């Protein structure tokens, strides 16, 4: 088991984050975001390290991680793709796009591809219904999709 540690830049960021809050527990979510940016998912080693750093029991941290759709307690991939399947997007084929992508790349929802390239996640309304149907690719919104354009956008990813 490889030990996790924040890299030098993130150590500094971690210290700065703590100054934003009046207690350490409140800094937990930003710290988890920071760790996930560095490590791509919140592995047991990450949790152990954060627990030690912040003095928050691991079980508490795991509870928080499991509550939120964007904290991952399992490996993701180089590209995390979130497909909206809420009302407006579903009206314009969001569900067919989600299923079509999984079929095309032979994937399961929320399981990384073997080559570590893609991780597809079904999501609720992404707050961009004017561009329905839409998805997020690594924090970038893509809208007005068809299954074809969605697949194309994913195929060219590194």
């Amino acid at each position: 088991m490889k030990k996790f540690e924040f890299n030098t830049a993130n150590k500094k960021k971690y210290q700065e984050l703590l100054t934003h809050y009046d207690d350490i527990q409140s800094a937990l979510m930003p710290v988890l975001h920071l760790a996930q940016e560095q490590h791509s998912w919140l592995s047991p080693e990450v949790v152990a390290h954060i627990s030690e750093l912040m003095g928050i029991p691991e079980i508490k941290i795991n509870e928080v991680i499991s509550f939120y759709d964007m904290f991952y307690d399992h490996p993701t991939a180089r590209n995390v793709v979130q497909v909206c399947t809420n009302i407006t997007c579903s009206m314009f084929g969001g569900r067919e796009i989600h299923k079509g992508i999984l079929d095309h790349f032979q994937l399961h929802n929320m399981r990384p591809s073997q080559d570590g390239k893609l991780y597809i996640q079904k999501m609720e309304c992404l707050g961009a219904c004017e561009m329905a149907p839409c998805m997020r690719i690594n924090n970038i919104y893509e809208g007005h999709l068809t299954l074809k354009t969605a697949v194309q956008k994913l195929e060219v990813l590194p």
Partner: protein
Amino acid sequence: MSIANKADYQNFTLLSYHHIPSVHHLEIFEEAGGYEMMKKCFTLDPEKIKEEVKNSGLRGRGGAGFPTGVKWGFFSKDRNQRKYLLCNADESEPGTFKDRYLLEINPHILVEGMIISAFALGTQRGYIYIRGEFYEQAMILEKAVKDAYKRGYLGKNILGSGFDFELVVHRGAGAYICGEETGLISSLEGQKGRPKLKPPFPAIKGYRGLPTIVNNVETLAAVPWIMRCGAAAYKKWGTEKSPGTKLFSISGDVNRPGVFELPLGIPLIEVIEKHCEGVREGNKLKAVIPGGSSAPIFTAEIAKEVRMDYEDIAQKGSMLGSGAIIVLDETRSIPDILKWTLEFYHHESCGQCTPCREGTGWMEKIFKRAEQGEGKLSDIELLDKVAFNMRGRTICALSDAAAMPTQGIIKAFRGELESYIKIQMKNR
């Protein structure tokens, strides 16, 4: 400076700067008139600011429509007590995207609104809780906050006023329930985003057990205009009980979906026909969800009559909510809409209250059974009954938010649900 770079306070209270290229840069915002009100407010008695906001009749734009000035009035006046101002930028009510549109183009209007509000309320620290999916928007906000610090508009002794205010952008991580104000507070405390029983209300006992005001992005962003032009001018828009303008997020079957700032009280049909350029492909209007997924659906008939203000929508059996309008044309299936709605609330229930946890799951199950062709006509009554029993008895309003649209669909489109159940049985 060209007129194109001046703010348009005549026609907009919230989007007054939206036409100005690169207005997310502090200097450009400021050149156009931004931060003037902040500077002016530091010369005023904080109570005067609260009074102006109260007199404007501004109602919270997060969904509940509670008068902002009244909420602020419950807040401790002790300026030395530790207190917080939280901006709710969770924007996760399905159909809603107006806060995103407001702050990704003009982050400084929110920062200015928060500084003025914080000064009025005497809060020393503020957080903008923005949903995790809005990563780019969070970066835009962080840059704006950083620039405001550099200019001395945030931090200690702002512009020599003696007032200190720290502002932090805090990212959520994907959970609808964190939009509910006490869920948001739990989340900010580094916990699961579980709502807390009210009372005590956050204004009395909120974040970290201390007095806390939670307001929506749009609410706080309206404050600079109200201070600039005055409560009386604000009230010239809208109706007596719904003063001012509102951002509407419109999606679905219209030719031009998007965000529009319009006076409250505007007929819904005018929003659709004029601002959204009509129903797509010349199709006939079938139904409209007028206030986000929690709002009971309107048939086309009612949609053509309703005015978009808190009271008229309520009187016709729905709610203005977040101002998210989803338009459905004649090609749409109501059972589809119900299914997607039920799945959503089941997924998002935080699970701590039995009626909500069980009810959202049960409703979804009843629907799925019918979808499989294993339903009966009496399932409609059953759904209605389950929904009824979810109302008014839980820690937060998510349970009601799941029950209301379900009952609304049953009331407005019972015939279509009945045929759906029968067809699915036949096709089994």
